[in-house]
């Protein structure tokens, strides 16, 4: 019976191909946009999650509140503060530094490349591992001894020296007004997706790690501490205590310090994406509603056109339920077909966007199933009224209909 109904519904849809297609359009657009928005949102979310994993999910920055008017020099940090924090929270901290960067031109022969030097401690490799392909990473001696050694990105090495293995080579650069000779002790490689590169603001210039003790001097004040907690630490609790400790250390209200954690930022990103999805989802829902009304309209037309057929069927013994199911099957099928076309359209759009962003965007099977199911439901819901109108027809009047 069900198969019979499906066959009948298919042939009814086929007979009016153009009309059926136009009717489906609302559903096609609705489902198509739902699919693409959900899938693009999904993809973006995983991309951001990857990005934050790259940055390190246990990471936090602490600095004096940017909203304060009465910031004194003593509110900034010194290396002593850093040492105190290390002493007190040594068991919970995986890594800590003064978050120092400097941009300067590196000179080698006639080559001149603008470099971003990131000041790091020797154990930065533990929290942000890179793949050392030549030489070695910075070691404790480099940092403590404030040696002018650097670990360079392989692409930058190629740019500056024309070779990948630049270990042992030296270049000149000017940091804080003093021009010195620096030695490459290692070369690393780090693969980033185009999206990650874009989001992490990688410049066209070179990048290299340099002992942070070269950028932050013993009596310097610096703006922010960068902390990575150990993996097994309860982040909320630890960062809370850290903030309180810093407040006391700097003789400030703990709340005057600003703390940005990667987890929070990611959560914000997530909820922003969620909000975006919800907004576009709302538009899609409206389009589904309009699509559903379109289906209802065409089904009403179809019921009127086929009044005589309904009369014949009833005269042969069709019950209210039989007629009802026949028309519901038709509207559900009409809508589900629209849904399937919408899925194809949406998936196409998603892979196009994925190609642009340089990531493989996937449409989850569960989303596809949900979309087809939902569009069929839309068809059933909006087919209800026309179908019951058909089913309630009086057989004699229906048979007399011209």
């Amino acid at each position, binding site marked *: *019976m069900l198969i019979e109904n499906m066959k009948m519904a298919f042939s009814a849809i086929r*007979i009016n191909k153009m009309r059926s297609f136009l009717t489906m359009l609302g559903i096609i657009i609705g489902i198509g946009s739902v699919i693409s928005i959900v899938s693009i949102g999904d993809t973006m979310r995983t991309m951001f999650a990857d990005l934050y994993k790259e940055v390190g999910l246990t990471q936090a920055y602490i600095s004096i509140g940017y909203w304060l008017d009465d910031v004194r020099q003593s509110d900034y940090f010194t290396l002593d503060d850093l040492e105190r924090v290390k002493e007190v929270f040594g068991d919970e901290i995986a890594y800590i530094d003064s978050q120092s960067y400097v941009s300067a031109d590196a000179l080698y022969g006639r080559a001149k490349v603008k470099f971003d030097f990131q000041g790091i401690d020797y154990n930065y490799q533990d929290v942000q591992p890179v793949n050392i392909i030549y030489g070695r990473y910075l070691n404790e001696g480099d940092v403590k001894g404030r040696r002018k050694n650097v670990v360079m990105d392989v692409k930058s090495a190629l740019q500056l020296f024309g070779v990948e293995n630049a270990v042992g080579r030296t270049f000149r650069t000017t940091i804080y007004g003093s021009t010195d000779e620096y030695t490459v002790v290692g070369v690393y490689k780090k693969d980033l997706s185009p999206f990650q590169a874009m989001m992490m603001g990688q410049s066209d210039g070179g990048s290299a790690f340099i002992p942070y003790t070269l950028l932050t001097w013993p009596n310097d004040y610096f703006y922010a501490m960068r902390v990575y907690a150990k993996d097994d630490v309860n982040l909320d609790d630890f960062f809370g205590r850290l903030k309180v400790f810093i407040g006391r250390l700097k003789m400030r209200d703990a709340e005057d310090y600003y703390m940005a954690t990667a987890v929070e930022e990611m959560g914000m990103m997530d909820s922003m994406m969620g909000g975006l999805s919800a907004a576009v989802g709302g538009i899609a829902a409206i389009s589904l509603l309009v699509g559903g009304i379109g289906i209802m309209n065409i089904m009403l037309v179809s019921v009127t056109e086929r009044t005589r057929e309904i009369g014949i*069927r009833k*005269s*042969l*013994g*069709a*019950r209210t339920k039989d007629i009802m199911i026949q028309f519901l099957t038709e509207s559900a099928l009409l809508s589900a077909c629209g849904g399937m076309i919408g899925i194809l359209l949406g998936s196409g759009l998603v892979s196009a966007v994925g190609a642009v962003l340089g990531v493989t965007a996937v449409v989850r099977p569960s989303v596809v199933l949900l979309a087809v199911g939902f569009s069929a439901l839309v068809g059933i819901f909006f087919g209800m009224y026309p179908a019951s109108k058909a089913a309630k027809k009086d057989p004699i009047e229906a*048979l007399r209909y011209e």
Partner: protein
Amino acid sequence: MKEEQLAEELICLEDMAKIYDTGALKVLGLKRVNLTIRRGEFVAIMGQSGSGKSTLMNILGCLDRPSLGHYYLDGVDVAGMSSDELSLIRNKKIGFVFQSFNLISRMSALKNVELPMTYARISRKAREERAEELLKRVGLGKRIHHQPNELSGGQRQRVAIARALANNPPLLLADEPTGNLDTAASLEIMELFTKLHAEGTTVVLVTHEEEIAAYTRRIIRFRDGEIISDQPNEPHRPGIAAQVEKNTDFMEGEG
């Protein structure tokens, strides 16, 4: 004695009336009809246009309900039944043949014949077999996959008759079954009814033509919603029909 009589009576109308309520004015379609038709009868209903023949057929066919009185079909009063109960009765007990054939277009002859069986929830295979057999019986064994618009009027009506017989109903009703057919096709259809009657089916048909009514064994005449005469008839088939039967043998010929 009483029970036997009941079993014999397929149709029993008691003071049955049908009033059409068209808002301002009430039209009396049928007034106080009392009528009994026994199993195996072959009845013609005649009368001028507007005399209530179709009204009666619709009630006999359970497409409509009497306004007053009772209608016992097979001993069961159908007057108070719900529309779904009536559907069931139409499906199982009644085969209806219409003047305008009423086949569903875009469905093959076979599918049309299958329909009543579909609503009786008979399996697809059994349905197809029986539909094919029925189409053979009405002489359309070679036309089972044709669409209605690929068939002649007479062939369409034969499909309709095959469909009416699908669930093997005890009662076959036909409202002017030959009204849209030429003489030759009309006589073929009447031959078919005669054969079905001979096989035991109760046949009630409406006609305007004496020639058609002549095939039956009882003729009931209506005027203004009332029975004015009800007489037995000695069936006689016109010469052409005898000829049709003699030289073509169409019913077995094709199947």
